[in-house]
């Protein structure tokens, strides 16, 4: 996975180089990400067609929070499709 800028400075999209992408919806509900929403780090998480979109919480900065968010997104993706966060590996059990 790799981050790309979203439509505004608070939004970052975590692009997953896999298809089909149905597992992204389940990943968005993963506990690690929910925790970040709960503590205010993230304002929201959304599963888009090819990525997870994360919106930063108020008065938070990506420079300070990027590593935590990255780790949580990675954990969420790995939980749904082991290996998918590392890019197309050929052996990844892609979710349907």
């Amino acid at each position, binding site marked *: 996975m*790799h*981050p790309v800028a979203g439509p505004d400075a608070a939004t970052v999209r975590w692009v997953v180089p896999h298809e089909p992408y149905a597992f992204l919806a389940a990943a968005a509900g993963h506990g690690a990400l929910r925790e970040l929403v709960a503590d205010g780090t993230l304002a929201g998480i959304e599963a888009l067609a090819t990525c997870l979109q994360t919106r930063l919480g108020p008065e938070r900065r990506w420079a300070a929070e990027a590593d935590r968010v990255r780790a949580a997104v990675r954990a969420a993706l790995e939980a749904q499709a082991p290996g998918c966060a590392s890019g197309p590996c050929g052996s990844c059990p892609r979710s349907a």
Partner: protein
Amino acid sequence: MSAACHDDPAPERGAPTGLRRIALIGSPNAGKTTIFNQLTGLRAHTANYPGVTVTRSEGMAHTPAGRVAVEDVPGTYSLSAMSPDEQVVVDLLDGTLPGCPTPDALVVVLDATTLRRSLTLAAQAMARHQPTLVAVTMLDEHAARGGRLDLPALAEALGVGVVGVIPPSGEGIAELRARLDRPQDWAEPPFPPPADSEEQTAWVRSVLAAADYHAPRPDATTRAVDDVLLHPLWGGVVFVAVMFAFFQTIFTVAAPIQDTLQRGLGWLAEQVADHVGHGFVGAFLSEAVIGGVGSVLVFVPQVALLFLLIALLEGLGYMARAAYLMDRIMAATGLDGRAFVAMLSSFACAVPGIMATRTIGSSKTRIATILAAPLMPCSARLPVYVLLVGLLVPSGTRWGPVQAQGVAMFALYVLGGLSAMVSARVLRSTVLRGELVPFYLEMPPYRMPRLRSVLLSSWSSVRMFLRKAGTIIFGTAVVLWALLAFPTRDAETIGLDQAHASAYVLEHSYAAQLGRAIEPVFEPLGFDWRIDLGLVGAVSAREVFVSTLGQVWAATDPEDPSAALAEATYLDGPRAGEPLFSAPTVVALLVWFVYALQCMSTVAVMRRETGSWRWPALALTYLTLIAYAAAWLARLITLAVTT
């Protein structure tokens, strides 16, 4: 030393203060220096093997809005330095390189054919929170071998600007130049790529997938050629054959041009004698200028051909193969293939050879290479060897299709190379004992060198040689001429003809007194005071030996010093009347020049690279002792064989 020699491998020019500074960083052999040359109009040395650039270079790039300072730095696979050349990059980016402020922006040069590996460096560069732009090179080669890459998608995935550049043709350079104007407007990623190596790998794979990257097929031609050139047996055979052909070419192609130049000098000497006369000015022109500097300049064809052939081998990508082939042999000496690359660079000159050791991570291996590098036959030895081989082996002697003088030359180069290895072995077993660090060197694909690059590279080296002839060699020739011409002996030479008068002045000159003072030291080697004078002059640069002999014998016979040199005899002592340049004496001289460290520029660069006088002092001592002992032994053996 040759001059090609004494310039750093790449130019370095200070940028006016206040200008925006942009650093070009990238993996070795990614094409940074070619981009640097295109942007700045400079002619820093480029070649098709990793590790060519070992110093920081700076130049001015004209952009649509003005100028920016562009810095070219050695190639590196990561920003965790493992060798002195990589440390230059890290120090520059950290702002700890003396006299070099931190660059305002970075252009990361990535080779499209090795993008998977190169993106790690891009990730590290982007993590430095400086405006970053990516220039992707080798796109033509990548596409030709079936590779695929979507540049806009790569830019989106990286979060920074991406420019496709094909440096040799200049494609993309205009766009890159335009972007250099406003780094503050360059795109930035939301945050830097991860630092953790596992996460970084995941990031790289993801970015490549997003950019629809398909690695190119292995180069079929390179693979087929390498099956032979890297074969444990045939590769070695081809290597020896290439080197053999190298010296045959130098002799067979350059000899006729050299003869023409020689005749031209003879004609010039006649003109001086006819129109200027034999007075003070005439003597200066015929002895110092024509006899001294001219005698070195006649070797320009050989030197030019040497540099041309080296540039061709570098451009083709053969140097990396030679290093690979030699790695196993080098391991026996306690060095590795990277040290061999440095030694190969010493073929042109020991100075860039010694600087090329910056790619060696282990300090002990590096110092051993530095101490052995002066034994590699450099271009400054070429005029000396050609002159002496010409005295030893009659011109035109052939063994079948093989030119005998070329064989003698090849033997001298082999002797120098072997001696460098033995010397390294001894150093690595004694004062520089230590573990051998694993050797890695990326094999570049074979590429047809561009004629312009080859010619520019050769011309740059020849120009340095000419500059040296016009400065160090001319300066030494003037001093020597004064020592040979004074004190004047007008009263003693009244009634003598011109030749006898010249000989009388020469034998009673200050130079003769100096030569005779050191004659006892070299007498066991068969050298008389005139040869000793040449050896003293050659301490500044080896070619001065040729100019000194040229001057001494121009004073004897201004119109045909070459013939006078070949027919010279001992003037006095027990050998009086015997030929001076007999086989034992010439062989001893050749062996002396194989070993003696007669190059002050090499000593100076050794001091600079090792940070101490200890190592240059050791090199001077051991090489002088070996030179003397080996020359004495060679004379004895030749005497035994020829009598």
